[in-house]
């Protein structure tokens, strides 16, 4: 591609944004309003009663599961079930919700000083989401590791001291050291079903990002939607740009091994996250054999083959790659076809069985609206009286071309199927017909009673610009009648 090509294409604006912080963090809130009235002269309180009211509300955000993944997740990379060359790429998850990676924190306290309302902060904010990548080799190293996320409940994330039915045992999870389930947010129940994975701490430390890493593993992107397939989820109606957020993994996939990727929550995991080189953090036993239970918000698998299967390779392989000869929407004639058939196929026609109205059966040509060459607009004259009027007979082959007849019929059927449209159309046609009849009548009246009305039929409209011709005539008639009465 030429150099100026690149320059032009760079006009496509992609904005990389450090983070989008939510206006309010998830949780329950209480709003108190109080009003005290003072006398302006004495400066004393008018009434002892202070008027006040309290409102409570909750901001809900995804925590241990995504409530509506279809509306939240815009895509995985590599795609779920994808097969290709992924050995030098980091997996990621793309979200439609631009604030999602920052609605919670991996730290125990908010990791930044909240900026004044309406302002943004330049500070690094670690994301609470992480993409972890496992494969069969990890199972070999840590027997007992299950790659398939387990179906558990939110209660299973609590130690048994807090929730008796918990299956966590002495292992670690989000609520270490709590004795009740009060840390749950508004609307969360210990019995809610979620998915989770138990990772041996040793493995977790090897592959989990550090707290500092989490500052760099998520960002937001703003892109133009002008040249993209329509997608109502990408932006509100009428918006030319879409906001996305993206969370990356930190581990490269292994070639020729099935890779299992997980989007997990690291909320408040500060004390368990490893050091820079993947060893136990201070305060933890390096030989700890316990596991850590993480909520799995999404999971998918892919396979890195080590062969090229990047986007461009896949697009270049379309139509059979460079050997492909046909890029037009038509059937390719088999060698040995007759001239008639070859020509028709090249023009985009397809022979189809045709049940004749008389009961007979034949084969006719059909071609859809998408044709391999430009066709001038003057082939059919509208309106078409009936499908038969649009059927073309080719005397040289004795075959029908039913394309336009089929088009007319499907149009009529689609219109009939939508009763709102067909009724409205019929009513509109009736008003057009009525308008024609009225106009004819008015013209006739204007002509015949020209002398009585004393108006030029052609100038009636010009004189009474504010009124429709019919109304103008009525008023003129009325005036004439009144004048006649006075004269008598």
């Amino acid at each position, binding site marked *: 591609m030429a150099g100026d090509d690149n320059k032009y294409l760079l006009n496509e604006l992609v904005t990389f944004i450090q983070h989008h912080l939510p206006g309010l963090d998830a949780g329950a809130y209480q709003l108190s309003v109080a009003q005290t009235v003072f006398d302006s002269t004495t400066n004393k309180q008018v009434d002892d009663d202070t008027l006040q009211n309290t409102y409570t509300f909750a901001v809900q955000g995804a925590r241990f599961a995504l409530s509506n993944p279809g509306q939240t997740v815009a895509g995985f990379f590599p*795609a779920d079930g994808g097969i290709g060359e992924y050995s030098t790429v980091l997996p990621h998850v793309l979200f439609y919700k631009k604030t999602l990676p920052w609605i919670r924190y991996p730290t125990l306290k908010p990791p930044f000083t909240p900026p004044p309302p309406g302002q943004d902060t330049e500070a690094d904010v670690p994301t609470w989401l992480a993409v972890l990548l496992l494969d069969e080799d990890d199972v070999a190293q840590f027997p007992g590791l299950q790659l398939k996320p387990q179906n558990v409940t939110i209660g299973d994330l609590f130690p048994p001291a807090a929730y008796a039915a918990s299956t966590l045992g002495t292992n670690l999870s989000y609520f270490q050291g709590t004795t009740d389930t009060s840390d749950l947010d508004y609307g969360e129940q210990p019995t809610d079903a979620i998915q989770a994975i138990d990772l041996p701490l040793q493995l977790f430390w090897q592959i989990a990002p550090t707290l500092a890493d989490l500052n760099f593993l998520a*960002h937001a992107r703003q892109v133009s939607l002008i040249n993209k397939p329509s997608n109502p989820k990408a932006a509100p109606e009428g918006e030319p740009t879409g906001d996305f957020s993206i969370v990356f993994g930190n581990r490269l996939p292994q070639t020729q091994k099935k890779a299992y990727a997980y989007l997990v929550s690291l909320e408040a995991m500060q004390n368990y996250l490893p050091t820079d080189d993947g060893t136990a953090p201070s305060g933890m036993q390096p030989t700890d054999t316990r596991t850590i239970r993480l909520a799995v918000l999404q999971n998918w698998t892919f396979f890195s083959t080590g062969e090229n299967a990047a986007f461009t390779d896949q697009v270049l392989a379309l139509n059979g790659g460079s050997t492909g000869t046909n*890029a037009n929407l038509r059937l390719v004639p088999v060698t040995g076809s007759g001239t008639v058939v070859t020509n028709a196929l090249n023009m985009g026609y397809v022979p189809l069985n045709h049940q004749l109205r008389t009961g007979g059966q034949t084969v006719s040509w059909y071609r859809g609206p998408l044709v391999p060459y430009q066709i001038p607009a003057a082939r059919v004259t509208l309106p078409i009286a009936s499908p038969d009027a649009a059927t073309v007979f080719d005397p040289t082959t004795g075959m029908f071309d039913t394309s336009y007849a089929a088009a007319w019929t499907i149009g009529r059927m689609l*219109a009939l199927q939508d009763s709102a449209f067909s009724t409205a159309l019929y009513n509109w046609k009736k008003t057009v017909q009525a308008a024609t009849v009225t106009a004819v009548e008015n013209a006739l009246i204007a002509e015949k009673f020209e002398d009585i009305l004393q108006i030029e039929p052609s100038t009636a409209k010009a004189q009474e610009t504010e009124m429709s011709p019919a109304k103008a005539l009525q008023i003129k008639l009325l005036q004439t009648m009144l004048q006649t009465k006075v004269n008598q």
Partner: protein
Amino acid sequence: MRTRLSRTVFQARLTATFASHEAIQTTLQDVIPDFPDPLHNWMARLKLLYGVPFNYLVPDEGMLPPESIRFFYVDVNWVNAMLDGAYSIGRDLSSAENSADMNLDRATLAHIHPKINASAGAIRAKSLGQPGTDSSLEVISGFLLRSKIIGEYPGLGVYAYEKGQTPTDPTPAMMTILRLEKLGDQSDTLLCLLVGDAFRVDIHEAPEHLHYGIFDYTATNGTVTAHKVLQSFTKTGDNVTFNGQIKPPTDISSCFRTVSPRTLKISDLATVIQNANHLAAFDSAEMGFEMTEGVGLVSFNNQSA
């Protein structure tokens, strides 16, 4: 003086008017009721082939096999025939070419078609907050893309150019897209309709979906050799100026954990990138920019034009 107007005169005049669409047009010139918005919006969607069964568009699977892209022109005659079929509601099918119903429909054609065209040109534009195209939509071209990349790269972008307006020409201009969407949620087929005669079509990866990647990676006995191609840039406020690639690719072999040689030490990597670019500060946005690999783009050119 008395003037008497008999009903037969009126009826004769009506018959004469409805016998010719020109007469109806002349009569209706100023008083034609407006073609209501819901109606021309509905017909505009039909014009862009919304709701038309797929086997009417592609009657034989051999025309669009798996992993193929097929370019086409839209046959205006076909679309007009279909629009007329929809518009024929309330028309007597057994009637002759010149019946009153036919003439009335014939007379209103010139009124409704510009409205349908304007509406069709605005459907996609409106959902993106853009002004609709003022083209008369006489030439519409496009392509059908059937491939697994439709599912794998949901936001893939399309740039289309007419002959003489491609990026290699002095005045490049992108064609207006009338319709660009998957034919269903789980479909592997993408339909694109363009205003005008497409000469070159570029298909590229979605910018929001660009992945993080490195240039090369080999690990022998736990010793990692890896490189990353970095872009040099300078920042002035929010504006970024590119200064091209940093050559040779930066060595990032030290950014992998000893205990798990495929796991990147992301903060170390950030420091390496920051130093390579001589930046004072470095955040996730800059990291995102540096770690993404370039947009993969493939051009299709019309060889016969």
